[in-house]
């Protein structure tokens, strides 16, 4: 079926209509703020759950099996399926959706935190202990800073995952930019669908760039991949020949 010939201008009709940008009521600004709020709150809850668990497993290497499998299982869970399951089980509402989003965001953070700690140079940890750091100092002054590139990459892929799945969640009643998209689809208002898609894409890209800036600020240049690529390229990534290791903690976001 060939696409209907729509003049370019029409695609942007909704987006560039000043009325939709009104700060009052449910305009674009309101949806945008909702979307950002859902995303950040979910990410924060997920990090609070996943980081301590990942740090514990990575530091003690107890339960490694768990971390690896949660990471792999998390990637293969169909996001839309999980949302549907949650809604049918608990009912329509913000809370069940947020729970589903958290369930999707925990695995990448957990798996990459674990992988990050395991990738840390053992001789540096050995030196840290030998120089008289206490266990908690070893963790936070040596292991975590060295693992930070992977930990942050897990957080960043969780961020994208949540932002994307929050869009899908409009289908089961969540607010946010996904509303424009879903409501537009149900009323056959393509300019509105297009506006929702463009806005959510721009938001996701901006969030990703922002998180990249945060990454630059918190990760030491000494362990940042690009600055040391020439000397340590191989060590910087998980060993692909080791099948027990997670293939890559970062997946397509959704």
């Amino acid at each position, binding site marked *: 079926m060939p696409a209907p010939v729509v003049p370019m201008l029409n695609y942007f009709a909704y987006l560039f209509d000043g009325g939709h940008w009104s700060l009052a009521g449910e305009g674009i600004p309101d949806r945008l703020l909702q979307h950002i709020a859902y995303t950040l709150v979910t990410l924060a809850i997920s990090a609070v759950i996943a980081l301590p668990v990942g740090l514990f497993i990575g530091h003690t290497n107890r339960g490694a099996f768990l971390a690896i499998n949660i990471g792999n299982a998390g990637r293969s869970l169909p*996001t*839309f399926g999980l949302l549907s399951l949650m*809604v049918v089980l608990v009912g329509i509402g913000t809370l069940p959706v947020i729970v589903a989003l958290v369930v999707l965001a925990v695995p990448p953070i957990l798996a990459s935190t674990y992988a990050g700690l395991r990738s840390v140079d053992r001789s540096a940890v050995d030196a840290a202990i030998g120089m008289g750091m206490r266990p908690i100092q070893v963790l936070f002054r040596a292991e975590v800073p060295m693992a930070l590139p992977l930990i942050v990459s897990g957080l960043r892929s969780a961020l994208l995952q949540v932002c*994307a799945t929050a869009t899908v969640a409009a289908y089961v009643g969540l607010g946010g930019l996904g509303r424009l998209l879903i409501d537009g689809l149900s009323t056959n208002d393509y300019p509105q669908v297009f506006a929702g898609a463009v806005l959510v894409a721009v938001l996701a890209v901006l969030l990703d760039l922002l998180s990249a800036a945060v990454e630059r600020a918190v990760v030491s240049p000494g362990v940042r991949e690009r600055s040391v690529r020439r000397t340590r390229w191989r060590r910087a990534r998980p060993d692909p020949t080791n099948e027990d290791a997670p293939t*890559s903690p970062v997946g*397509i*976001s959704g």
Partner: protein
Amino acid sequence: MIAYIQGNQARILSDLGQHVWLSLLPVLVGVVLALPAGYLTVRYRWLYQPVVNLGGILYSVPSLALFVVIPAIIPVGTLSPLNIVVALSVYSFALLARTVADALISVQGETTWAAAAMGFRPLRQLFGVELPMALPVMMAGLRVATVSNISLVSVGAIIGVGGLGDLFTRGLQLSYLAPIIVGIVLSVLLAAVCDSGIVLVQRWLTPWTRAGAR
């Protein structure tokens, strides 16, 4: 549950069939495009950063948004399965192009120098030495792309083409758990089967990676 499966066998199977090709065809497209693209970025290093940056941007666009803007960019109907295929191909390409480039860069070094010194011509060296050595890393990327695609296809159900996602929208409309659970289980199983399949192929292709393992 059993009753649901028995009563809807045909529909479940056709959803599954659609799911398979909607998720795997894009991987194939991604591989076919990413191999030359990855090679070019290694050959002409100045291409590397732009390709990685573009890939990163495409990658961060949410799937639902990509599904619905494709008709505005290329002439396909808003309900065409091609939307899904094109969108997932974009993701697969973005992921794999970078993986191929990184994998090829990582194997450059003494072995490739040795190969060049022994008189391999560039193309022969690429296919005979560099690609095989880069295979483990590339296969790891392939696994991620495949599994991610399989879990993403069902989002397409929102625009009417989503393989097993069809079971989710049905379950939502009927407020009925059985189709949703069937859909989730089949989707996860499909991902596991494909993932294991790639691992097996990789073992068969790269017997040397196990030679040193205990």
